[in-house]
């Protein structure tokens, strides 16, 4: 699904990622953990095509294509979905319109006809229930005035409608209380499928209690310094990031 080889990324003159190697196969759930400043968010931004980053070396291949060559919207239409750590408020654009515009742009890109208005509404209402959201949120401006938990649910709602192949979850657990975390995690778990992969970026082990990863990576100073099973996350929680950094040093 996604193959990252020797990825080096700089912001200005400052190297942030210093040779990332990562293979994510279809259906796998990977977690990337790491201390603040290790480059976790940079990785999610580079994969989704945010500007301001320079790839100085390495390749990213997604479904056999050069991902880094694609505009952000093309990546999205090809099935890459980034759930933002801080979803952006867009006053004046309604949530339901954005959902429909996104789905149709994706369908047209894939050579499918635009979605029928009635089918769309049925689909959206189903997913809204799944995320225990109020239908009123559909008719409000995108994320405007939403609480932290509502914003994160809205991100997962978008994923549930777009049905991406590769979900990148950037600190999805941040700012969530335990109830909201459970709902969001249930939404994410319901999206798990044999043809869909996940890359979860998180500082804490907490999210992984609810969404079981297949593989856990530890990122430190722009490199993956350790890879293991779910037990690695527990070990990290117990010993702290300094444990990994000591091992590397």
């Amino acid at each position: 699904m996604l193959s990252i080889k020797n990825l080096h990324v700089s912001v200005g003159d400052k190297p942030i990622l210093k040779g990332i190697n990562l293979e994510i196969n279809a259906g796998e759930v990977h977690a990337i953990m790491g201390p603040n400043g290790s480059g976790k968010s940079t990785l999610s931004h580079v994969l989704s095509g945010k500007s301001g980053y320079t790839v100085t070396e390495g390749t990213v291949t997604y479904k056999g294509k050069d991902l880094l060559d694609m505009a952000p919207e093309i990546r999205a239409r090809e099935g890459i979905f980034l759930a933002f750590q801080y979803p952006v408020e867009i006053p004046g654009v309604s949530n339901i319109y954005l959902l429909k515009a996104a789905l149709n742009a994706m369908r047209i890109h894939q050579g499918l006809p635009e979605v029928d208005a009635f089918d769309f509404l049925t689909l959206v209402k189903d997913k809204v229930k799944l995320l225990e959201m109020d239908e009123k949120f559909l008719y409000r401006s995108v994320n405007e005035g939403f609480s932290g938990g509502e914003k994160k649910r809205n991100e997962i709602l978008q994923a549930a409608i777009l049905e991406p192949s590769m979900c990148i979850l950037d600190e999805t657990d941040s700012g969530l209380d335990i109830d909201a975390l459970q709902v969001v995690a249930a939404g994410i778990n319901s999206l798990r499928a044999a043809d869909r992969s996940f890359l979860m970026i998180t500082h804490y082990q907490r999210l992984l209690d609810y969404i079981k990863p297949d593989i856990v990576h530890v990122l430190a100073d722009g490199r993956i310094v350790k890879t293991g099973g779910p037990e690695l996350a527990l070990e990290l929680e117990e010993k702290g990031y300094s444990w990994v950094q000591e091992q590397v040093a």
Partner: protein
Amino acid sequence: MSAEQINSQYPAEYAKVEALLPGQSVSWLKTLREQALAFFSSHGFPSLREEEWRYTNVSAIEKKLFSPVVHDEIGALDVGSLDTYRLENAWTIVLVDGHFSAALSDLEGLPSSVRVLDMASALEQYPDELQKYFTQAVSYKQHGFVAFNAAWFTDGVFIHVPSKEVLSKPVQIIHVVTQADYMSNTRHIITIDKMAQAEVIETFIGCDDAYLSTAVTEVFVGENADLTLYKLQLEGEKAYHFAGTYVKQEANARFKHHNFAFGGLLARNDIRTDLGRASECELNGLYLGIKRQHIDNHTRINHLQPHAISRELYKGVLDQRARGVFQGRVVVAEYAQKTSSEMNNRNLLLSNDAEADTKPQLEIYADDVKCAHGVTVGQLDEKSIFYLQSRCVDEATARNMLTFAFANEMVFKIKIKNLHDQILEQLLARFPQEGIQQEWL
């Protein structure tokens, strides 16, 4: 010819048509017109040297002698195109080249206690009553435009809603100017008595040539009364436009103003309100400037009494070589304790040649008040663009969506459905960007 030479010709022109101006038999008005003309002769139109006009150069207006229009010179009008601006489910008054047209107006079904009539007729029927209103909200000495308007006005509208009367439909005043070099000067009095409610819409349209349109409106909102004014300025692209709206609010009165400034080459709005005890005002504005348009909005809110609330939000979208000017001044008098005031002006600059000049001013003399103001001038938010792109939307569409959404916030506030739709349609038609769709909202 120099500006002074042009301005000095107006008195001679005035002498030619004076006898045809309404209210000739009304002595207080005759005096007012003469004083105003004398003030204009000595002051001319405002210059950049005046603080309130620092950013707006009106000298272009002084390069041309605009013609007053007397009745038999009223231009022909394409009634079909007029109808596109006429709102259904409203009482309509049409002023063509500054004169009331009975044939084009429709006041059928107006409650008999409510008076909506042209100013020329009102001056004949109620000269003494009108004296109580004229210049009470604004003196002709305010500046050259107000003086010019007072001297030259050919007609206007008088609206009186008696106490406890709630108008079931809005009143729409449509101003049309039909020909090059014409000037239309109109004067309006709107007075809403205790506990009454009304909505008034002013629409300004005109031909594609240069003309001058001025309108001065004095507004009186009685105790517990409620007035909403909508202004839709869609003047022709070479037009010069000045409109002044001066309001007096009694205790607990509510006044809302929605100001959409889309048209004209050079357009200036003055909006001022004096707030009574525990009264409320809301001033909303949206200006869209393209090409070489210059759009200036000056607002002033006077908190004279305690417990009053004012809310103000003006937004500007400026593209190509357009220039937008905003001045928002809030004055809180020493006696006006417990004032609550909030003022915001936000500008979106879409090109390197567009310009926004914004000047919020708070003058607070009381010590127990809550006042806030904020100003922004900027481009579209890159984070928002990326967010939309990450949701499959291409960059150009994302930019258009955000621009339109920014402006639409002001249209969204309009609760009269057909007026809302008309404003949205005008906004869509005027956006220089292509591919903007209404379905986004």
